[in-house]
């Protein structure tokens, strides 16, 4: 009997994995809420659609900061140079709209203010990196480009 219950639980678990994967569309809100609750305790029910339907362009945030010593410092976020940057880049890629870019810019400014204490204004440029085509790379005629989607100048009070 104990084994049967455990077997039933494992089958139900695999059903939530299948439903959470996104292969089957869930329209019932209360069922979706129950699935979410189960997922957050067991890890069974996440989506697995990596790089789909397309790879897309990564969003990168560039900052230009005038330090207290009047030096211009340039930083980039979302380039995956370490664990922090990789994690932050997943936050940048989650939402792609002007409001989110504005919010992320504020978050970045608060970080910059800790990195360069008493700094002056910070110019922020949010953009997508579009690589060159294979033909352009082979010919060496063009390299990848950064296309700005948002910018702003911020000061920390």
């Amino acid at each position: 009997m104990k084994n049967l219950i455990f077997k039933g639980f494992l089958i139900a678990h695999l059903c939530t994995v299948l439903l959470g994967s996104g292969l089957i569309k869930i329209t019932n809100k209360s069922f979706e809420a129950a699935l979410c609750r189960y997922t957050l305790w067991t890890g069974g029910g996440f989506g697995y659609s990596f790089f789909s339907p397309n790879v897309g362009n990564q969003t990168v945030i560039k900052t230009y900061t005038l330090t207290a010593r009047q030096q211009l410092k340039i930083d980039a976020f979302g380039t995956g140079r370490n664990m922090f940057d990789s994690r932050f880049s997943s936050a940048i890629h989650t939402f792609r709209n002007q409001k989110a870019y504005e919010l992320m810019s504020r978050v970045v400014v608060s970080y910059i203010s800790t990195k360069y204490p008493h700094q002056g204004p910070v110019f922020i440029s949010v953009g997508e990196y579009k690589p060159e085509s294979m033909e352009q790379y082979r010919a060496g005629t063009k390299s990848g480009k950064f296309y700005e989607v948002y910018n702003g100048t911020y000061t920390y009070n």
Partner: protein
Amino acid sequence: MFKLKEGYQLAVLRIGVAIAILTKVFVEFSELDLMYSRNGIVQDVLSRPLEVSYVLSLHGLSDFLHIQDQHVFLNSIYIVLAVAALLLLVGFQTKLNVFICLLTHIMVFNSYNLIAFGFDGFLFSLLFYCLIFPTHKVYTIDQLMDKKHRPLDAAQLSLFLGVVQVHLCIVYFTAGYSKLGGQEWMNGTAIWKAINQPQFYTAFTPLIKSLACYPVISYALTWGTLLAETAFPFLIWIKWAKVRAVILISIVMMHIFIAVVMGLQLFAWIMIVFDLSAFAGILFKAETVKKVKPEQDPDPLSYQLINTPAIRQSV
């Protein structure tokens, strides 16, 4: 020659997960304040509204314990996590330590899911399997200390492995199927696009770019990935052992490519652990256990070891 014990896949799962956690602790420890504190990159105003109330969270725990110093709090949490992972690695008090690891992961995941990525989701799933499956029974100190020497039940073992296998098949099929409509995947440029993103730039990028800039190589890599992911759930079950081995090795190679060329080492590691804990049986055979008939042995829990493959064939 060294013979693998029946159910060694559970040891692969346990050890692989423990190494993943230890690596995570090692690479994140110096940046904990930046990532997970209230004044970090995802501040309270952003992380609190995204947190769900019915699951444990870092904020909830620090509020409950009235801890003001976030630095001490986070460092303590991660030290506990590292010790638990180390004990999980050697298999001492396995269940308790996997529970500590899972609980910590749940708290971090709930508080900072905004900065979570694929690795965290898979680590979560595998930690849960480590908890509910008898991972303490294979290659552990717990097993050595267990005077009763209770072995794994062969039927239950195949059920546990079956769950991990079906889960993995769902993962790959979803990953492959969701790419089928994508223009970049269809026209063969997806891998070229991926290796060119600044986030995935590594020391190997120039070399791979110099190869993948030729359409035939780019197409082969792109469609090869698509084929491996979509076909995996079907080919891995067919009777022909060589085909099963080829598809398993292909998918492991794909993850090695992801680790080396795109720099996603943790994600690649956890996926290889997932692959091998599910299907390592295709590549590495273990000693099998056979239940002894009740009339031969009055103890229904006793099992007899049968060496494979020669003896197994003769049975």
